[in-house]
């Protein structure tokens, strides 16, 4: 070994040491427990014994035969559809309107982001108490004034939309900020060229701005799909999956299986299915960011 190679090895060893803390922490918290979950999904682990019995695909057969699991899957899909459209449209609309308003832009961005930076617990509890509560909330106010509306969280027909409404209320401001940052990167000469050619506002949006922010739009869609399959906080805080499982999601289904029924093998199987969706989306994610020149 030449001294130069030895020196490079030493330097590279130092760099491995520098990256070790991040990888070690992630390994202990995410990777190793993740591998254990993948194993536990094929066992009857009850969370107590250290030697659970191998049961093959029984957990998967059980969950796919369970109507509640299938309903959860449907709820996750509805949730994804809601989040791919409503906050995206609001985010794009408000970002386009803020693009030309330099003086008021900062104030609006701050206002729109306030629900986003508050804790899910705070947001959920305040909606439960002051909006949806049929006695003391805004719903209660309407009931006192002769309207027949009920707490939308209490009905199996509306609960999912009522929960999604709170989550969307807290989320869309994030998209406004991200889209606005992307729109501001659009080359001004393209916009001016379109104006010279007599394009109207809609045409400029459709043929100049929209193509320009396409990578950001795609990336946000992928993120939304991923996070829609992981959605937990607002659902668990507002309804815990009820009433009558009508807002059950894969995440709450797995959580209840583990911590209420102590069926950890089954919960692990659901966790694995969720990760499958995540992995699928992250392939898309890596594929989309592969155009990044720094990679």
């Amino acid at each position, binding site marked *: 070994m030449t001294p130069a190679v030895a020196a490079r090895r030493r330097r*590279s060893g130092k*760099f*491995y040491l*520098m*990256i070790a*803390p*991040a*990888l070690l*922490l*992630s390994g202990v918290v*995410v990777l190793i*427990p993740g591998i254990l979950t993948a194993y536990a999904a094929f066992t009857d682990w009850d*969370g107590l014994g250290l030697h659970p019995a191998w049961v093959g695909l029984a957990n998967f057969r059980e969950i796919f035969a369970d109507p509640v699991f299938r309903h959860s899957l449907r709820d996750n899909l509805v949730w994804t559809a809601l989040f791919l459209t409503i906050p995206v449209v*609001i985010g794009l609309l*408000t970002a386009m*309107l803020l693009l030309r308003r330099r003086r008021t832009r*900062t104030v*609006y961005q*701050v*206002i*729109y*982001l306030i629900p986003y*930076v*508050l*804790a899910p*617990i*705070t947001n959920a509890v*305040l*909606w439960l*108490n*002051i909006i949806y*509560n049929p*006695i*003391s909330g805004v719903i209660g*106010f309407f009931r*006192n004034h002769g309207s027949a509306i009920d707490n939308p969280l209490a009905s199996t027909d509306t609960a999912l939309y009522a929960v999604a409404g709170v989550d969307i*209320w807290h989320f869309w401001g*994030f998209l406004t*900020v*991200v889209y606005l*940052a*992307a729109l501001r990167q659009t080359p001004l000469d393209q916009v001016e060229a379109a104006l010279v050619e007599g394009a109207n506002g809609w045409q400029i949006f459709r043929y100049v701005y929209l193509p320009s922010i396409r990578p*950001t739009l795609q*990336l946000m869609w992928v*993120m939304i799909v991923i996070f829609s399959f992981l959605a*937990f906080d607002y659902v*668990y805080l507002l309804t815990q999956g009820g009433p009558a499982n009508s807002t059950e999601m894969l*995440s709450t289904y797995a*959580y209840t299986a*583990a911590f209420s029924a102590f069926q950890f093998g089954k*919960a692990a199987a659901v966790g694995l299915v*969720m990760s499958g969706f*995540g*992995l699928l989306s*992250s392939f898309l*994610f*890596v594929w989309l*960011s592969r155009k990044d020149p*720094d*990679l």
Partner: protein
Amino acid sequence: MKASSAPRAAGHLILAVFAVTALFPLLLVGINSLKLSTQIITNPLALPTTLAWSNFGEAWQYGHFATGFRNSLLLTATTVVTVLICSSLAGYVLAGKKIAIWPAVIVYFMVSMTVPIQLFLFPLYFGFAHLNLLGNVFAVGAVIAAMNMPLSVFLMRTFFLNVPKEIEEAAIMDGASTMQTLYRVILPIVSPGLITVSIIVGLNAWNEFLISSTFLQGNYTATLGYLSMNGTFSTNEGVMMAGAVILILPILAIFVLLQRYVVDGLVNGAVKG
């Protein structure tokens, strides 16, 4: 082009309507935090006629806020310090492509950013139970640090990528070691990145629900203490709203003061993440 004032006004109207949508529930919290329960039930939309400041004292007591704020601060500090140390080191190595396996590390972090908590929650829970770590805010802070690691590493990497190579080369030419170069020369340049990561990760840690509610088991954070009031205090909405104000005001103040970094972190995390 004709100066069209009607569309401009419509634009302002739309922006204002969404601003009201974002703020309306919070305004209701504000006005109702000073009302008596009976007044809220009569009309939650009315302004208070008397000021029931005692709501705040009761909320502070029954929401366990003294313990809660202390625990939340310790947990958040643990997460932020851990993340800053680990992600600045890893971001530097990855930005400079200083190890052969850097593409594999990036793919690992990308994948680990998208896995559900339910993939690692259950074995981790039993690991915690086995090691008697349930209820330990520092251990939970470390778990939340691991969950925020991919995003932070990518954010720091982006900031390191923007440091001109010549600066590092000059320092090495002058005989500085790798660590000296990193801590004395490069870290000061990326300090806006460190602030951005601290704020984004700090907010995530402060607001975290699933891991802390599962692992802390009655050792309340500020938000978990407040959650424990819900239901038991549904008879006194004024106290519930005062509790919400206690939680919202500090976060609101920090956010408004540091909004530039928050926006910066969200945008960079979203575009580069």
